């Protein structure tokens, strides 16, 4: 455990010693603020309309904070897709390029400890990103009283979703010595997992539609956003994460064989 924490600590320092942490945080916070504002404006307009309708057809309550938080957190899941490859791109590729992988793989650490250390470091930084969304979310709590249940499940969903994507990115960073290539490949892989949803919509046969929808990384978030905690969604993200981590582990092993 102490070995893993040494690696986590080093990776987190590396994020903050390089511009990556600051660039990612700045862009992410700026974009999330921008989206929050536009969603807020849309919902305000909607509320105004429904108020006018209420005068004609009688009052119909709408859950404004709920609609805003759901819209905002769903948008976050898309922005995160673009940000996360930056967190994982260098984790193994840089070690390979500089030869420091030789230090890690000849030190008294197991390969699993190395992989987990890197993964936890990326996960910890991802948590910081998620926490930063509480700047706009705090506004909701300041001026309204949103139902906490759906927000909690939405965050749990985002957490699982993020960890699965980070694991995929971690695996891809073992495949190359070039950070940029790792980032582009991770981005491509994530896009594929995302776009199978679109393909599924146009699919004619019911089975292929079902399979493709199941594989889509975003479709599993919907339930979480609605406040529904379904075990099938949890299992989907956890298994994607575990498969990617296992592939990372195997990839490190084959790195040894190839030298």
């Amino acid at each position, binding site marked *: 455990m*102490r*070995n893993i924490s*040494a*690696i986590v*600590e*080093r990776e987190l*320092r*590396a994020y903050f*010693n*390089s511009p990556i942490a600051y660039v990612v945080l700045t862009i992410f916070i700026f974009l999330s603020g921008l989206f929050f504002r536009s969603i807020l404006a849309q919902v305000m307009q909607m509320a105004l309309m429904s108020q006018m309708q209420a005068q004609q057809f009688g009052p119909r309550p709408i859950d404004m904070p709920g609609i805003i938080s759901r819209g905002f957190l769903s948008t976050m899941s898309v922005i995160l897709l673009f940000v996360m490859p930056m967190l994982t791109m260098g984790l193994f590729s840089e070690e390979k390029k*500089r*030869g*420091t*992988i*030789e*230090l*890690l*793989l*000849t*030190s*008294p*650490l*197991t390969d699993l400890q190395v992989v987990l250390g890197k993964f936890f470091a990326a996960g910890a930084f991802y948590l910081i990103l998620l926490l930063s969304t509480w700047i706009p979310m705090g506004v909701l709590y300041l001026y309204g009283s949103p139902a906490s249940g759906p927000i909690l499940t939405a965050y749990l969903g985002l957490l699982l979703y993020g960890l699965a994507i980070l694991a995929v990115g971690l695996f891809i960073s073992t495949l190359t010595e070039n950070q940029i290539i790792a980032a582009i490949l991770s981005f491509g892989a994530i896009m594929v997992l995302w776009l199978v949803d679109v393909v599924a919509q146009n699919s004619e046969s019911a089975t292929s539609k079902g399979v493709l929808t199941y594989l889509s990384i975003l479709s599993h978030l919907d339930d979480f956003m609605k406040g529904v905690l379904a075990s099938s969604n949890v299992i989907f993200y956890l298994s994607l994460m575990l498969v990617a981590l296992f592939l990372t582990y195997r990839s490190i092993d084959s790195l*040894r*064989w*190839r*030298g």
Partner: protein
Amino acid sequence: MISVEKLTKRYPAKTAIEGMSFQVERGEILGFLGPNGAGKTTTMRIITGFMPATDGKVSVDGFDVFENPLDVRRRIGYLPESPPLYLEMTVSSYLRFVAKIKGVLKQKLDIEVKRVMERVNIADVQDRIISKLSKGYKQRVGLAQALLNDPPVLILDEPTIGLDPKQIHEVRELIKDLAGNHTVVLSTHILPEVEQTCHRVIIIDHGKIVAVDTPKNLRSQLQGAERISIEVQGPFSEVVSKLKAMPGVVDVQKVGDLDGRHKLQIESELQKDLRSDLARTIVQNGWGLYELQSATMSLEDIFLKLTTAEEAEKQGT
């Protein structure tokens, strides 16, 4: 301390090491000598557990590298060919990190880091960012990293590469200092380094051991012939033919001309000192003798002879 048996490493395209066996005793400094691509780095990487072998057995301090990799790695300090440095870290934070993953206890961390920094003389740059250091300092930080947690075995892949002559001297002294308590395996292609630091030399070429011995024995064993260089003034062809006719002379070769004097190299039969005979012949013929020197073969010559002999043998079969 280290035992390597019939080690073989094959890649899909080529064989890097073929049936290599050797032992390293406790407290010994063993030198790996060989041209680039001979298999030095591969052998070291297998001993350190960085990569598995295709075949063969390696054990360190009784632990098998394949079966107990962690026990082996705990006993080895390894400096790879290019020092494995995280360039954005400071020297001390880098060493603290390495100490942690090597299992140095928390309360001993500061003392241990300080100890190795003093050992390789880098305490003055401990707060500098590694990327800003000179090549010599980087190499020494790499060496410091290998010394952390005081491992009984040190594997050093080209430890003096990129250092200036003064630093090279310091590192060699350090390595000699470490021997006794530590078992050291170092690789190099700089021959004087082997002569100055190692107790025993393994010359490898094309993944096979060509020779194993002390630097001193290697030299005397492999001297097929003594060499004497002379500088003489006289009619060239006559000098050569008369010298060649002398008993015990194997060959006479011209090295150069200088102001009408000829520099010649004479190869004599083994264990025959021809120096006084040569001087007599030259004086009796009335030529001028300007210089007479016995030239022992350097390790460099032996090395070339061995590795090229191997090559010729290969082409022959």
